């Protein structure tokens, strides 16, 4: 019995750390879903776009991927702002499906641009910490990157939550998410607010992209894989709470690694999908959603 | 006259708001029952409960002798409960004729030629025949209101719920619709009618049901109701502080 539990320590700890990474992947999608009421099917591709941008910057400046964030975050924010302001805002009023389909089209466009520019080869943001591990308790080797992912994710979420609770802009974004019409009556230009929200979400995608790139290999077509993970995080974690999203990430990460542990590595993604389908069926508003 | 519809302690709550509160009333076969009440009185919610768009939180809806409380909206329609919507909801990308066919084929369960004949007859009756091949989304407001009535009639209802046909129209247009409603009644259809233009209710209905805040206020002769102290108070406010 004890040895059985000891055996589980590895997948549990790794699953939680991986879950932190999933949390940061999902957070941008969750924000946009909650604030703009748009399911951004291109979110996974924005993450991968950031990975590639980081790769280019890293090679050009001969620096570490984490340093490239100084450039990548603002760049992704600008991209997100313009996408929302000039493209997505224009279809929001047309009902639920057109924005979904535009985002879908955007996703395919991004993938194919990446494919044209970077070829279908696998890439990775390789650094000195990529292969390092820390031994824990003599029986567990923690990959350092996983630790970096987890810390990066928590840091981003703390910063975001401070922004949302302490600044006028943050409160205005939350107000617009609660009631767009009433927010306009407070003098808030909600169209601009939406663009700013998308800029922020793309900023988190930048962080996610760099962390993903440091942890796994990526291809131009990897985006949808992370999209489904992001959607899983949103669904499991529920809308409207940063903490809920983070927990959603942890649950998904745990489920994946435990699934892989018991069923074999081929089933790592599968157990995540099954959790997603179960939650979608029984509580589509998310486990941590109120009401 | 037997009751065609009755409700027993009908209650609907949304969160902590009670939209319809313990409402019990009866509709006699063949009559026009007017329903009025100020903003938020719960009239449309009552309609949604009778037609099955909402399920009540408590209470029952009895149609003829059947308890239909747990029947779906489409089932109730097929049993003979038809309705119109306050804001017309035509099938915009279908022709006027097809709009009626939906009612005839699904609601009245007709097939083929009988369905088409029924639809054509009602188009003629409501004056929409010349526009039968136009897309419903292209109709002006008056015609869309007519279409609401026509489409509901195509389901061959024995009980028709009319939700505000008069709003947004000129007075001549209102008269036109009033005539159609009266003609529907001539066909033997029982009607529950919600209207804000009270003059219309005054002229067209047999009995008036007044509700306020989701509660039963009074029911009876329209003139007496309108002049009663309770109704005046609800609308005009109490005189004393």
């Amino acid at each position, binding site marked *: 019995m004890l040895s059985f539990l000891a055996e589980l320590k590895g997948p549990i700890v790794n699953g939680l750390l991986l879950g932190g990474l999933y949390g940061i992947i999902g957070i941008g999608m969750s924000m946009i879903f909650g604030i703009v009421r748009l399911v951004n099917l291109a979110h996974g591709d924005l993450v991968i776009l950031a990975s590639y941008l980081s790769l280019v910057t890293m090679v050009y400046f001969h620096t570490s991927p984490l340093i490239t964030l100084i450039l990548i975050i603002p760049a992704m924010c600008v991209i997100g702002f313009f996408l929302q302001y000039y493209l997505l805002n224009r279809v929001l009023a047309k009902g639920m499906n057109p924005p979904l389909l535009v985002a879908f089209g955007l996703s395919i466009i991004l993938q194919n641009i990446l494919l044209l520019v970077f070829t279908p080869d696998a890439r990775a943001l390789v650094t000195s910490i990529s292969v390092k591990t820390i031994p824990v308790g003599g029986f567990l080797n923690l990959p350092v990157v996983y630790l970096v992912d987890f810390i990066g994710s928590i840091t981003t979420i703390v910063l975001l939550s401070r922004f949302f609770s302490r600044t006028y802009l943050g409160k205005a974004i939350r107000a617009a998410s609660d009631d767009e019409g009433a927010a306009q009556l407070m*003098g808030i230009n909600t169209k601009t607010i939406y663009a700013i929200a998308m800029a922020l979400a793309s900023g988190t995608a930048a962080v996610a992209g760099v962390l993903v790139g440091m942890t796994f290999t990526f291809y131009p077509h990897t985006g949808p894989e992370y999209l489904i993970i992001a959607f899983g995080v949103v669904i499991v974690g529920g809308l409207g709470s940063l903490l809920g999203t983070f927990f959603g990430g942890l649950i998904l990460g745990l489920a994946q690694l435990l699934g892989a542990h018991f069923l074999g590595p081929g089933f790592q993604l599968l157990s995540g999908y099954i959790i997603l389908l179960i939650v979608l069926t029984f509580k589509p508003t998310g486990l941590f959603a109120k009401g | 006259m037997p009751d065609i519809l009755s409700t027993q302690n009908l209650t609907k709550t949304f969160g902590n708001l009670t939209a319809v509160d313990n409402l019990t009333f009866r509709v006699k076969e063949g009559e026009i029952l007017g329903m009025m009440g100020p903003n938020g009185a719960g009239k449309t919610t009552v309609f949604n409960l009778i037609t099955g768009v909402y399920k009540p939180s408590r209470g029952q809806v009895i149609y003829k002798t059947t308890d239909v409380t747990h029947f779906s909206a489409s089932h109730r329609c097929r049993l003979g409960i038809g309705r119109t919507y306050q804001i017309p909801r035509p099938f915009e990308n279908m022709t006027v004729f097809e709009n009626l066919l939906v009612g005839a084929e699904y609601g009245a369960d007709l097939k083929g030629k009988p369905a088409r004949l029924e639809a054509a007859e009602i188009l003629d009756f409501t004056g929409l025949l010349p526009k039968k091949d136009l897309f419903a989304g292209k109709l002006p407001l008056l015609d869309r209101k007519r279409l609401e009535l026509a489409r509901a009639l195509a389901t061959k209802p024995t009980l028709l719920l009319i939700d505000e046909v008069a709003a947004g129209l000129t007075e001549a247009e209102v008269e036109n619709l009033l005539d159609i409603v009266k003609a529907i009644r001539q066909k033997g259809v029982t009607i529950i009618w919600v209207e804000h233009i009270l003059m219309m209710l005054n002229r067209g209905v047999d009995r008036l049901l007044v509700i306020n805040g989701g509660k039963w206020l009074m029911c009876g002769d329209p003139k007496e109701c309108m002049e009663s102290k309770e109704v005046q108070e609800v609308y005009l406010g109490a005189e004393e502080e």
Partner: protein
Amino acid sequence: MHGIERSSGGLSRGGGRIVAGALLRVEKIDVFYHDFHALWEVSIAVEEGLVVSIIGANGAGKSTLLNTIAGVLKPSTGVIEFFGKRMNGLMPYQTVSEGISMVPEGRRMFPRLTVLENLEVGCYIPRARKRKNEVLQRIYHLFPILGERKNQFSSTLSGGEQQMLAIGRALMCEPKLILFDEISLGLAPLVIKNIYQTVRQINSEGKITALLVEQDIQRSLKAAHKVYIMQSGRIRLQGIPKELSQEDIRKAYFGL
């Protein structure tokens, strides 16, 4: 009170005469929802310092009128002027900067924001942010309960408290004109009385002009310096409350 003396001479029954020097001037506007003709040549004038009330049954077009003034809806014809400046076509977030604030029907709290955050969002426009603390103190003075509950989520407030918060939130931007849409809807009589007292207080002490929409005729007549009665999207009657007969009001209200 000065305002009434000045304007009373210019009021006339039924017609759409515009009084010179009005703070808000709405002239012959028509409003459509698609092809639903909601307002028909509606004209009103609101003089500075007054409480003006619009009465009518539901569906009469009162809320449509307020929403058009606030910029939520656009008139297809006609003019809306505020301080002599043309307001047609401004978005709601722009009319706020011009000095018009609205307490919307149904209160429309931001439920996932605290009471204090709701108020802070009320002074989102740059001009108002600078004076936030001062105005906040005044609102806490007006509604002490909001001060006591400032850290609660607004969704936990009672209906009356939410209405107070909605009014407080609309005052945060220090408007010149405040629009009240059905503020008594769904509230207990005692609460309504309190709310109306505050409306008068805001008007007399705060020197804020108020335009309010109400279903309850008696309440409106009591609170207002001037009333308009609407029915079927048209102004049917206007005047000073004391000068209007009960019978005329009843007829205009029901469209008899």
